[in-house]
């Protein structure tokens, strides 16, 4: 279990994360959702100890997480938004370096490297240096590297950023399969459909503050499962309804150009934060 207790992160006068309190349960697929600059990556960076909070604490299974907490860090693995790898290393070297940093025996490193590189279709390129890999291959290699240590907690910062639709779906399937083995996953994303498809619960962040926290379904249900978009004076307005009949009745009475659709997490966020997530 991960407990985030009142963490704040300031960069000079700018507050990136403001008094954030969260608990992520073991085995949960948890999403941090928000527009650019909401504080998602900063939060992940603090959980991975790359950044230290200005105030507050992070606990893993009841123990304080800091840069000295080797036992807690052993449980963590991270896939960062950027390709955080030595560019001059080969794939094999990247994997071996990761294994060594986690004190894995060489035999285990070899076995897991073979299995993961095979699984992701990278095995034929294992002697190629990172510099000479495509963006998609680098992303896959980062996944292999993170899974190499068989972490209990996987931190994913925008793992599908820049991926095409097919690759994104493949990634979702991969993440679902690793999560089914009781791995806790914290995912940051600004793709709403990704959070809806994968996450048990999501935290909606905006300007560093927690706006809402619940399962995607509950958040949508709270707002109303049915949305009617209506063009009024050239401006899009949306009304939400808990019952389909009421939504249809509203639609039929509307004199403006209107349409009925299912409410999404994006709607929830717009209502809560007054900002569009994909901005």
């Amino acid at each position, binding site marked *: 279990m991960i407990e985030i207790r009142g963490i704040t992160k300031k960069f000079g006068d700018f507050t990136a994360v403001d008094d954030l309190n969260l608990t992520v349960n073991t085995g949960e697929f948890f999403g941090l959702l928000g527009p650019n600059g909401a504080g998602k990556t900063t939060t992940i960076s603090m959980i*991975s*100890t790359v950044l*230290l909070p200005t105030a507050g604490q992070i606990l893993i299974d009841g123990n304080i997480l800091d840069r000295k907490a080797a036992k807690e860090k052993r449980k963590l693995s991270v896939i960062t938004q950027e390709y*955080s790898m030595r560019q*001059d*290393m080969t794939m094999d070297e990247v994997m071996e370096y990761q294994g*060594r*940093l*986690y004190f894995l025996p060489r035999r285990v490193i070899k076995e897991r490297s073979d299995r993961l590189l095979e699984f992701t279709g990278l095995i034929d390129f294992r002697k190629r240096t990172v510099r000479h890999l495509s963006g998609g291959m680098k992303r896959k290699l980062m996944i292999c590297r993170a899974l190499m240590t068989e972490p209990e907690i996987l931190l994913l910062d925008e793992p599908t950023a820049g991926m095409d639709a097919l690759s994104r779906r493949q990634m979702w399937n991969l993440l679902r399969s690793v999560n089914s083995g009781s791995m806790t996953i914290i995912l940051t994303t600004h793709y709403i459909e990704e959070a809806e498809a994968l996450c048990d619960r999501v935290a909606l962040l905006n300007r560093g503050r927690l706006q809402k926290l619940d399962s995607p379904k509950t958040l949508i249900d709270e707002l109303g499962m049915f949305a009617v978009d209506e063009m009024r004076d050239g401006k899009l307005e949306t009304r939400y309804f808990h019952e389909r009949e009421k939504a249809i009745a509203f639609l039929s009475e509307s004199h403006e150009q209107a349409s009925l659709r299912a409410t999404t997490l994006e709607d929830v966020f717009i209502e809560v934060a007054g900002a569009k997530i994909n901005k």
Partner: protein
Amino acid sequence: MGIITVLWEKWTEFKRDFYKITVSAMISPLMYLIIFGLGIQTTSHGEPYLHFLIPGIVAMATMTGSFSAIAQNMSVQRLYEKALDQVMVSPTPLWQFITGQILGGSLRGMYAAGIILLLTRAIRTDLIFNGWSFLIMFLNGTVFSTIALVLSFLAKSYTDAPRYTSYIIMPMSFLCNTFFSTDQMPGGFRQVVSCLPLSQASGMIRAISNGESPGVFGFVILLIYLAVFTALSVLFIYRKKNL
């Protein structure tokens, strides 16, 4: 164990860039030896100037070899590749990572100095290089590796590393007992330059090469530098909030 991991990483880097590392370690010292030692043939205190120059060049090679192995690499890893994040999140104790970097950097400095020693074997100088000489080279390498680590943690962009070389390494190369004795400098300035690590390393290696005792003072100075900059590196890696 974490120290071995860092040394393994340094070894893979060394194998991959062997020719580049070797050639770049050779060029500057070789030029100095050719120009000042063989080109402008002078004597110093009745001895060929080369006898004075070679120990200084050897000490300088450990400095530049160690510093460049760490400063450039660590700045790029931290600020450009973000590869340091991989280490930060791992359970490898960060003090072991720092120790590995210091040892790895120092070994690279020793390698650079070893090349100079091999090249100068062709010139029969009767200069003595023994176990103490190598210990001083190693110690000097560790000092400059720690300085490089601290500076790379302070760097705001990866282009800062070459600037540090211009501001720190280049002046030390010329002033610190490499090409001429610090005894010839004016008072005050002489004392400051004498307390710099390269001045001490050059002086001690030169003393040994002439069959004299290196004394204790130089070791003390180098150990103080090593302790201070190691402490700063460890402090930064554990406590710096925005690494």
